[in-house]
């Protein structure tokens, strides 16, 4: 009798494994970057090309770095979330404008609103590679010491903002300076 049950047991086990596999996201590559210092960078600003934006400017505060581009469709999806965040003033949001044209990028911000304190203009995408970015949008939470604490791949939703990002920002802010 037991020998007839074996195929059934194997079938059920295999189905279970495959079923769980359905819910994984194959594009979700775990970042080895968490709790490592954010790479140093210095980029011209999107709006003021003669001024630079660098990681060290932000030392001493918790901030978000959002990689975006005007050609990126899902960036438009997360954009209202960032507009709301900018209005709330809970945490400063900086942009990393990835492989874009200056004109297209500024037009995009004028059309949809500009939630960024400033955006660095990364036309060759080198800073993005330094940050381990392989798709836009991606968002990093960086603490007062310049250490990466969280990385969100793909568009940030209201839910991700409320449940993951903002609680972490609050925790990091209350941690000693």
């Amino acid at each position: 009798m037991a020998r007839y049950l074996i195929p059934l047991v194997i079938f059920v086990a295999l189905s279970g494994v495959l079923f769980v596999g359905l819910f994984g996201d194959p594009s979700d590559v775990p970042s080895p970057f968490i709790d490592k210092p954010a790479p140093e960078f210095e980029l011209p600003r999107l709006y003021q090309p003669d001024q630079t934006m660098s990681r060290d400017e932000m030392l001493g505060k918790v901030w978000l770095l959002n990689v975006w581009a005007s050609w990126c469709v899902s960036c438009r999806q997360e954009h209202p979330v960032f507009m709301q965040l900018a209005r709330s003033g809970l945490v400063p949001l900086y942009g990393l404008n990835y492989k874009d044209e200056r004109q297209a990028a500024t037009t995009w911000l004028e059309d949809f609103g500009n939630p960024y304190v400033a955006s660095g203009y990364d036309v060759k995408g080198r800073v993005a590679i330094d940050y381990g970015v392989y798709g836009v949008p991606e968002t990093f939470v960086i603490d007062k010491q310049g250490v990466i604490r969280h990385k969100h791949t793909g568009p940030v939703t209201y839910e991700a903002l409320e449940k993951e990002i903002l609680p972490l920002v609050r925790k990091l802010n209350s941690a000693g300076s």
Partner: protein
Amino acid sequence: MIRRILWLTALLWLPFGVQAKEAEYVSGNPEMHDRVMDVSGELRCLVCQGQSLADSHSEFAVDMREYIQEMIEKGMTNREVVDFMVERYGDYVRYRPPFKSTTVLLWFGPLLLLGIGVAVLYFNILRRKKVITETPLSKEEQRRAEALLKKDESGDSQA
């Protein structure tokens, strides 16, 4: 008719004029090209999945190869370049997974499955040998079998 055949034969030569193009590279130096391709063959193209950086024509891969070339020009060894990428993108970026405690199953899983298969087969054969015992035919059975065979040979079977 002959003209048509001549035409078709001529057309058959067409594909030889076309050459497969390798992924493009920035520098014209073939040695540098080989090294960039060596290193990028070790790295996964994260946006394509299942392709190495050397095989992909995606913009991401082209950027990465440019960056790799710059690093090599700065004097970094192949290993250093791969380590640089692993630092940023994790072990997943290696096209050949490293041999670590977490990847033992990945490396030896197939061998393990093969071993289990062989063991199951072996014990099955052993068991079967015990079940099948040869029972010789009795006299009566022997006689009937011969009769049947004879009947078939004589050609009057009614099958």
